[in-house]
């Protein structure tokens, strides 16, 4: 009879260790199965491989960041309200010195709120301005930034 069989305690500990190794290798297996050079690049956004759509939205907002003057107010427009809400939420974190004003909030349009914004960030824009009276400040990756004319 082997010493292992004589000592059930040692056997148990080895089972737990084997289980731990199984769990340790599990997250690595799918990554090792793919070419490593594609995985060892510096990500452009913190969510590159978490959610590619959010990564594009993040890049759009980040591209607008240098163009937004500190203290300015802004709103975000997108074709669907889910994207618009996500952009608005991320915009609060990315533009801490600006005042965010929602164009819609959880699928509920808030046009009066958005109308107070000096800058309009249009995600994936149509060729023309999203509304009259907006001046194109710049086109950026994923959209464009507009400025609303100052009210008299």
């Amino acid at each position, binding site marked *: 009879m082997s010493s292992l069989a004589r000592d059930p305690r040692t056997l148990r500990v080895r089972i737990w260790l084997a289980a731990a190794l199984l*769990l340790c290798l599990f997250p690595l297996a799918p990554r090792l199965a793919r070419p490593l050079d594609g995985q060892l690049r510096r990500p452009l956004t913190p969510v590159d491989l978490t959610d590619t759509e959010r990564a594009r939205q993040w890049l759009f907002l980040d591209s607008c960041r240098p163009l937004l003057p500190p203290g300015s107010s802004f709103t975000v427009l997108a074709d669907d309200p889910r994207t618009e809400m996500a952009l608005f939420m991320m915009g609060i974190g990315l533009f801490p010195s600006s005042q965010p004003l929602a164009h819609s909030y959880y699928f509920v349009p808030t046009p009066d709120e958005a109308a107070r914004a000096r800058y309009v960030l249009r995600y994936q824009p149509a060729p023309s301005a999203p509304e009259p009276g907006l001046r194109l400040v710049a086109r950026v990756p994923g959209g464009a930034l507009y400025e609303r004319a100052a009210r008299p």
Partner: protein
Amino acid sequence: MAPAETLMVPVVWLGTLALLPAAGAPLVARTAYRRFAPATRAVLAGAAGAALVSFVMSLFTLAGIPWSILPIAAGAALLARALSALLPAAPAPPAPPASRRGRTEAVAAAAAGLCVLAALACTLAGSVSSMDLFFFWGPKAQQFAIARGVDAAFLADSSHAYMHAYYPPLVTNLGALATMAAGRFSWAGATLTFPLLLGALALALPGVLAGAAPRPAGAAVSALAIGALAVIGIRAVVAGNGDMPLLAFETLAMALLLRRDAGDPAIQLLAGILLAGAAAAKVEGLPFALAAAALFLLRRRGSARESAATAARLVLPAAAALGAWFAFGATSGLFAVYSEYGPFLALHLDHWPAVAREIPRALASTGRGLPWAVPLLCLAAAGRPRRDALLPLGTGAALAAFLVFTYLHLAEDPSQWISWSAARVLAPLPVLLALAIVSADASEPGGLA
């Protein structure tokens, strides 16, 4: 990482967290804690320091004192010193044996280290970043740093309803502290807290469990718990949100309570502070803390006086931490209780089939359910659980019941909510299963016998 974020920002942001062990050191440096190896003690000091720093930040806000790093750190260290004075004088416990690490322990440490490296690689690649970090944890911490306090006006703004004003403050408080030091919020630094805390757990857990089971068993079970947390963290994308801090507090507190010397007031006080950290990290930390404390008291029946003292050490720190937070909520008019989905007992029992169907589905789709199944199978293979196992298993059952209760509160179909949250909020279960396994080996003398 975000292009505009230079390397120095996350380095300083994360470096600020070194203040946490310093804040907890006046307590953990006490003789009673010399039973732990220095690395274990450093992690325990960091965890205690995090809970105390967050508490002091809440008190500053409540008192209208603007946050400033040094006064906060000094206040937390003074609090740690005052708490240490509450402990009765006792002879120094035996120091941990300086014996060489055995082969089992070395393999277990290597396995846990591999898990931490996997978590680090995934975090650096941007594949495990939690969207909740970018939606509310990060923006709140950043705004609080700018306002030098919990910003009631920001939380009260109707445009910030999704910021969950009532969420307990620890994660955003500590994020704000690091942001004040770094000069800006670090998204990269916040996501790196996932591998950092996993690494801290891997470093400390075997040392804490050495007081509950023989060292090889404690090391193997630690590696099992770290493996489960790594898989869940990677597959459920938790980097940067409140889940990993919560799990760190819960795991260390439960491991302390399972030790043979858990009757020692010093161990109980430390466990109570860590349970306070859990309760102040996320809403579900409170039922965990209450269940753990209640089951511990039931397990260790003593005189009424002893039980009252034990209850005080385990529960009062959490009561103080949440008391300060709810006092802020009440005085600012923001919130009085935890509520977002309706009155406490307004359950939608018609959603029960969806809850019963979606929770197993969510767990099965996270690492094919292995993080839950493997510890469960190991526990089954360990034989009939000893009485000590009731503490982690009962706490796990209470937590699961609380989460089902919470899911049944939603007026709409909770299926989608469950699909993206169940794996994260049920992540303590594999850890508790692994810690229950420890008790199967607890009859043998361990490092402290």
